[in-house]
């Protein structure tokens, strides 16, 4: 599993990848009330915003660790945004067919160190 310093995680599986946010980020955001995701077929660009998360009193941008095309969107997260608070590492947002990977990726250890 890899991370961006802006708290997104990346799970790669061949040329597909799933993206979500870290447990730390979910904790910081507090109760998540809404996740605004792109649609299947949309393009995402590495290091750029592709989604937004709302808590009651704040909005946060979610950046993509990869470039590519969205092949799947996790409706469960849209229907039950609390699932992100419950298990952030399982609550994936989108699955992407990857064309390029961000050059700013951190390993799990590097990410843990960055949030201390």
């Amino acid at each position, binding site marked *: 599993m890899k991370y961006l310093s802006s708290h997104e995680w990346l799970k790669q599986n061949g040329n597909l990848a799933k993206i979500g946010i870290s447990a730390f980020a979910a904790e910081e955001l507090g*109760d998540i009330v809404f996740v605004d995701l792109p649609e299947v077929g949309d393009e995402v660009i590495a290091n750029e915003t592709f989604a937004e998360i709302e808590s009651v009193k704040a909005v946060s941008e979610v950046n993509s660790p990869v470039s590519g095309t969205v092949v799947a969107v996790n409706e469960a997260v849209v229907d039950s945004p609390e699932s992100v608070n419950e298990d952030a590492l399982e609550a994936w947002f989108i699955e992407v067919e990857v064309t390029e990977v961000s050059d700013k990726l951190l390993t799990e250890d590097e990410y843990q160190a960055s949030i201390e």
Partner: protein
Amino acid sequence: MLTIYDRSKNGRHAYEMPTSFVEEYNLGKEFLQDKMPELPQVSEIDIVRHYTELSSHAYGVDNGFYPLGSCTMKYNPKVNEIVAGFDGFNNIHPEQPVKSVQGALELMYKLSEQLKAITGMNMSLQPAAGAHGEFTGLKVIKAYHEHNKDFKRTKIIVPDSAHGTNPASAALVGLEIVNVPSNDDGGVDIEALKGVVGDDTAGLMLTNPNTLGLFDANIEKIAEIVHNAGGLLYYDGANLNAVMGVVRPADTGFDVVHLNIHKTFSTPHGGGGPGSGAMGVVDKLADFLPTPIVVKDGDSYKFAEPQYTIGKVKNYYGNFLVLVRAYAYIRVLGATGIKDASQKAVLNANYLKYKLGSIDYQKGRKCMHEFVLSMEKVHNETGVSALDLAKAMIDANMHPPTMYFPLIVHEALMFEPTETETKETLDDVAVKILEIVKNAYSNSEYLKTSPHTTYIGRPDEVIAARQPILKIEK
């Protein structure tokens, strides 16, 4: 409480129409609705009982202390309500012949003159709210630069302490926002400002005093920097209650101003509106004002269209009945009274701040018409947050101050008592607040679950946002 729909019963009605003796005309079936809307069916006494009950679960300035920082919840004079209720103001159509509405035009003209005396600017009374005035003012700034073929000027500089409407308005106008950091006093960081101005600067939006309630003494320097770079200076008039009659925005270098008539000029907030966001500009921008403006034509009044008008920001001329109230307010106060109102607002704020000295992290520092307390220390030591303290104030029969604004102060509570509160009220409020803070150390759980004495406890805002129920399901 019952909803109005709970009180509904088929066949009940409260309506009555003027008697009509005209023959019926039936529209073709293809135009008609399939069924009538499911509005409530109630009798007149239901209406009265229902809204009376609802009103008893509302808290207005007429109920008690309302120290919402940045909102200027001053007393709403009743004579303003009386004059705004006159037939001659209510039952005139906006498109009546000009000769038949000379009174309305006269009032608008005289109000513009009053506001010009206070701000030093040429006014438009059209915007319906402060944010609307911001939108209008920024459009004027943009139009001015474009008129001068200065198309590169697309950036608006906004302090990070600014109210959210500032950047939102700029975005709506299509201008790019550049944030400039504040110094510890909430004032503009001069060096940082020098770093961001350039030939792409359309303007800088500022409120003075700033959102910490402090007067930025660097204002002339700031004006110089922005003007030298070719930009314009915008005054967010939300905090004008500190300096009405003491300082005129135009004299400190501002080019555009919007006023919050429902704040500074005593018109009631109505539960969220209507307000009025009258805006003003210096002479070189006057041709760009929204159309129409009221001008004098010998002894009478008429409408005129500014030569390079930006157009209209709403239908007709503005929130006229709100403007009537403002006119009455300024007329009663007059030159001395207006200045007195501001000075007493500043006096009251400083006095309350002094009484709250033991929890004031900026103790000894003079403020203007409002001040910010930080509950960070209390929060760190007891877990009781600014929100908890605010909710505990409700139990003590006070409306809380503004919470968590400005963003640059942690656990912020912003107090603006206004000039219309008595010394006894301020003394009493201070005692109650200090008591609450004391309780934070001895009984924090009670505070964290307050308020306890209100009709409802804390609402669950998470569920409200996750599973929105936005109307009565029938």
